[in-house]
């Protein structure tokens, strides 16, 4: 069926074949039932002088016409149950013997945060790699995850993996998956978690094993540390604002349309993220690479906050903001910044 997205997990084929098994069984049963039903309606329309036959359906010679089909339906149902049990056991029933990588997934309003072991291969050590909004994993590897939730229920859903699991505050739910194909896949939140439920999106990027090893060696970056040089956002700001100011009116509409207001507000109070009130030009204390520093919220800073919020995290807030790369265009970012300048 064209609507099922391509499967990229080692167990997804069970789900897809269940789909076909059930579709064939219930499809045939359904067509027969509807067929007989419609046939009766057409055939036994009232005709003058023809009386209905008195059939009460209370002796076996009559009830068998209902009970035998029913028995067949039951038998087929149990066949579905057996297939279900096999699939369920593999996906949710336990963990595979070889557990090559252990990660932690944390649901929070309104983003997914991922913790991966650094070069030492251990979670909860200094070199852990923490990312919000992006999960990097190696392909062809049994990955065991601990799923947690900080605030309310969330549900970690990756359609391409055919995997979904609720995240429950106060519980750690363990599960596993294996990606069979490198690529980039959408991760959703399938349980309503508040006003920002819509934007609770992240991306799973499956690398080949070698690429992933390199990524870990780089401390969670596609390029080796120190390769970049000058601040790319300073350049971006210069280029963007060289052509004049943005459109604050458009920016105002955009912060609502892009659901920024799910986490930010204008009235100076603290919500999920910092308020926009008086933000532009103020001094911010941010944590970058484990170190606190003071910066001025200029255009470059705001661009970085939007595109790489994890790079400099405002002190006192969790790294909960999803990176807006691919979601907010540069022109839109310019308009948003123009608007932020007006929020005093």
């Amino acid at each position, binding site marked *: *069926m064209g*609507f*099922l*997205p391509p499967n990229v997990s080692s167990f997804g084929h069970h*789900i897809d074949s*269940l789909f076909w098994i*059930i579709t064939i069984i*219930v499809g045939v049963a*359904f067509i027969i*039932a509807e067929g007989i*039903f419609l046939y*009766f*309606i057409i055939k*036994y329309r*009232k005709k003058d002088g023809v009386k*209905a*036959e008195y*059939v*009460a*359906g*209370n002796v076996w010679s009559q*009830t068998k*016409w*209902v009970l035998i089909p*029913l028995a067949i*339906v039951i038998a087929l*149902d149990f066949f579905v*149950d057996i*297939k*279900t*049990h096999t*699939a*369920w056991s593999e*996906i*949710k029933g336990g963990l595979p013997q070889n557990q090559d990588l252990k990660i932690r997934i944390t649901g929070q309003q309104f983003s997914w945060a991922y913790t991966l072991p650094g070069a030492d291969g251990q979670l909860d050590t200094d070199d852990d790699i923490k990312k919000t909004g992006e999960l990097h994993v190696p392909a062809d590897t049994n990955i065991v995850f601990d799923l947690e939730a900080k*605030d*309310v*229920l969330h549900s970690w*859903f990756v*359609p391409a993996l*055919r*995997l*979904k*699991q*609720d995240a429950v505050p*106060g*519980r750690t739910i363990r599960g596993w998956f294996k990606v069979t194909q490198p690529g980039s896949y*959408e991760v*959703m*939140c*399938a*349980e*309503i978690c*508040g*006003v920002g*439920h*819509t934007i609770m999106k992240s991306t799973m990027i499956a690398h080949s094993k070698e690429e992933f090893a390199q990524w870990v060696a780089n401390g969670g970056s596609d390029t080796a540390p120190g390769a970049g040089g000058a601040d790319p956002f300073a350049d971006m700001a210069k280029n963007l604002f060289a052509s004049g100011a943005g459109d604050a009116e458009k920016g105002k509409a955009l912060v*609502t*349309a892009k*659901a920024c207001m799910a986490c930010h507000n204008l009235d100076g109070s603290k919500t999920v993220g910092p308020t926009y009130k008086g933000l532009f030009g103020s001094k911010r204390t941010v944590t970058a690479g484990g170190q606190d520093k003071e910066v001025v919220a200029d255009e470059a800073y705001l661009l970085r906050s939007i595109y790489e919020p994890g790079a400099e995290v405002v002190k006192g807030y969790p790294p909960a903001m999803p990176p807006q790369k691919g979601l907010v265009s540069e022109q839109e970012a310019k308009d948003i910044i123009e608007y932020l300048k007006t929020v005093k």
Partner: protein
Amino acid sequence: MSTNQTSHHQMTFVQKYIFSTDHKVIGMQYMITGLIMAFLGGFLAYGFRMQLAFPGEAIPLLGKMTAGQYNEFITMHGTIMIFWVAMPVLLAALGNLLIPIMIGADDMAFPTLNMISYWVFFLSTVVLIASFFVPGGAFAGGWTAYPPLSANGYTAHGWSVGLGGNLWIIAVALEFVAFLIGGINFIVTTFNMRAPGLTWFRLPMMVWMMLSAVLIFMFAVGPLIAGAAMLLLDRTVGTGFYNPAAGGDPILFQHMFWFFGHPEVYVILLPTIGVLAEVMTTFARKPIFGYKMIIYATIGAGFLSFVVWAHHQFIAGIDPRMATFFSITTIMISIPFSLIIFASIATLWKSSITLSTPMLFALGFIGEFLIGGVTGIYLGSSAFDIYVHDTYFVIAHFHYALIPTVFFGGLAAIYFWFPKFIGRMYNETLGKVHFWLTTISFNLVFFPLFFSGMAGEHRRIFDYSMWKSLMTPEIMNIRIISTLALIVLFLSQFIFVFNMIKSALSGPKAEKNPWKSNTLEWQADSPPPHGNFAQTPVVHRGPYEYSVPGRSEDYWPQTSAN
């Protein structure tokens, strides 16, 4: 049980139509309140479907929608349709209208209690509607109200401890009080006030089904009321029943909710099966196929319905070893209902069918409910449910179960008993136009959603623009078709309203027994007076003796001596 007719002459308008103790007036009050709420629930659906089909555009009559409002709309849509439409129309209205008169009684056992039941329900409706207008807006945490989100005081427009959510809980609790009072009445009346000769196995299916539905409701509702009370305490006085930081557990609420929530499906479904039996036998001129078999199946389903609830929670974090047990019970509960549907189809065999409007809706129920039934098998399979849980596949499935049940079943009943309780005939042509428009548009709204659900479209999302895989032209077309069809479905219902009002005012007068039916209500006047029968009827046979060989008439009223 005879009534004192003279005392009724001095009743004021208020006594007769507002604070009435007559079961028929109370039934009508429930019916009209429920139908008005259905329009409100439908209008909310119009709002959020427009947002999905045309994201970010101003919606006619509503303007631009925000994410908070969207959550508010979907939450209140679900709440209203289940608790303020399905329950009052199918259970309270039909039960009140039909139980006493079908068993040959003059009224309910406790008429005053019955009146209180309606007014408590009315109060609950007022509280619910008021919640739209409090600061922060109505409750927006989903109609299932899962904590911690619901315990946190989340509402549509902000994070303040929302009054809207508290009112929501209070409204639901009041409503359950109303139905508990009403339910007691149903049970006592059925047990004690049956006319002479009306033994258990001569009862019309409608009465059997009502009784079963009410018993299931009463057994199931306790945990939910407790769960809701704890939720209210968590929200208002800061207890931590559902707060893990305080030693509570959010999943506890899910168990309490679905322990009620699943049986609730049958509380709604059974009355419709009752309607189906009455309408089909009348318009097919045949006994119901396997009367006793159906009753035993219903009783079995009633018991089973208490051990299937966790199929709503396969991926909620319950012990994975429980899944297979609940998968099996879930598939088992499909057995009695398959039996009932098969028996209904068998009833048509060698019958003599008249496709009047009530019959069309009853047959429509069977045809459409089958789709809801078979798609339930996909969801009952715990492994397949991993993928489709909380997607549009589920939405499509339960609307195929609920809309046939509530609307097709409810409308079949309304058209069927309209001549009896209003005393005039409705317009058959308008009825048929209403049926066909409803059926076609209903399928266009929901069938496409199976496909978007298969594509992974997850629920309760306000704007899919940021989801590349869910913004393909195919899926976008599905959203638009579904939304446009919804508008047609919604507008078609005004044909029904017009027909009802016009016919009630100026339709041709109905005789006592226009459909030549057997059950007792057709022996009373149309409309029946306060007290229903001039004399207590005496019952001689079962309700479905149609086309009995050797008789010249093809029906045989329960009251005829021969």
